[in-house]
């Protein structure tokens, strides 16, 4: 990890990685979503609405994955004071918030024909909504700290504390059996028929690549802004 502590070295790698992630992401997402929409049978219970799974599940995974990344970046910042950790945290937050919002909205759209309601204060739905609000809080806190000229340690602490919500989201369907169905994937395999399942890993991997490309682009923007601010400060001091 310390190999990338040098922003110049990181930028060199990020430029190539952004393009590759974007192209690979478009390709895999395209195959996954087209496959999910046109080449899988409808579910015997849910009918055509099962196709919402191909966008809902990757969004849920990335909503939670984004905060996992923030928690790792927070540890890297608080423990090792890694120079890119705060930048990574600030870049991950908006992308994670977007996917948490997509997860909530697509889940609500799926819930109307399946459950007969747009929303229920169920354990999974509520903990996911809390994650979305945590993202908004993190974005506001990190931005305020940056404007104040801080190192982002308060945002990093918030990122670590917020990670408590991740196991709550994961186990919510086991702890509180209300409306959201139990886990479809476990150590014993998948409860979904392979004829319906196959586009899901492709879409998940593809959308994850696009998420990675967006995060790298935000990190590059943050680094360019930091460089510019430092140069302007130096010019003002001369």
């Amino acid at each position, binding site marked *: 990890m310390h190999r990338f502590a040098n922003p110049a070295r990181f930028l060199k790698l990020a430029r190539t990685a952004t393009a590759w992630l974007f192209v690979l992401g478009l390709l895999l997402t395209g195959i996954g979503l087209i496959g999910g929409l046109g080449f899988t049978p409808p579910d015997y219970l849910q009918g055509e609405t099962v*196709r919402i799974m191909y966008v809902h599940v990757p969004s849920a995974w990335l909503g939670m994955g984004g905060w996992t990344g923030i928690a790792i970046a927070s540890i890297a910042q608080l423990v090792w004071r890694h120079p890119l950790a705060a930048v990574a945290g600030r870049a991950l937050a908006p992308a994670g918030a977007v996917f948490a919002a997509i997860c909530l909205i697509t889940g609500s759209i799926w819930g109307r024909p399946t459950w007969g309601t747009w929303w229920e204060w169920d354990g999974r739905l509520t903990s996911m909504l809390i994650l979305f609000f945590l993202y908004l809080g993190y974005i506001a806190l990190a931005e305020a700290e940056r404007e104040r000229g801080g190192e982002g340690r308060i945002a990093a602490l918030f990122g670590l504390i917020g990670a408590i919500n991740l196991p709550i989201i994961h186990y919510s369907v086991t702890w509180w059996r209300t409306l959201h169905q139990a886990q479809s994937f476990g150590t014993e395999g998948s409860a979904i028929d392979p004829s319906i399942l196959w586009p899901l890993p492709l879409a998940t991997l593809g959308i994850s690549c696009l998420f990675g490309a967006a995060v790298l682009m935000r990190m590059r923007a943050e680094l360019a802004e930091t460089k510019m601010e430092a140069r302007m400060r130096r010019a003002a001091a001369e």
Partner: protein
Amino acid sequence: MNHWSFVAAAYVVAVGGTVALLLWAYVTMRRAEAAADELKRK
């Protein structure tokens, strides 16, 4: 309402949200990198 209307709505939200995120990330990156290069040249 037909099931496909719900499917279409969910895909519009997901694809629209992802495209908007990528566009915003790209535009802000290009703008920041161009401004940093401009300042370097001065």
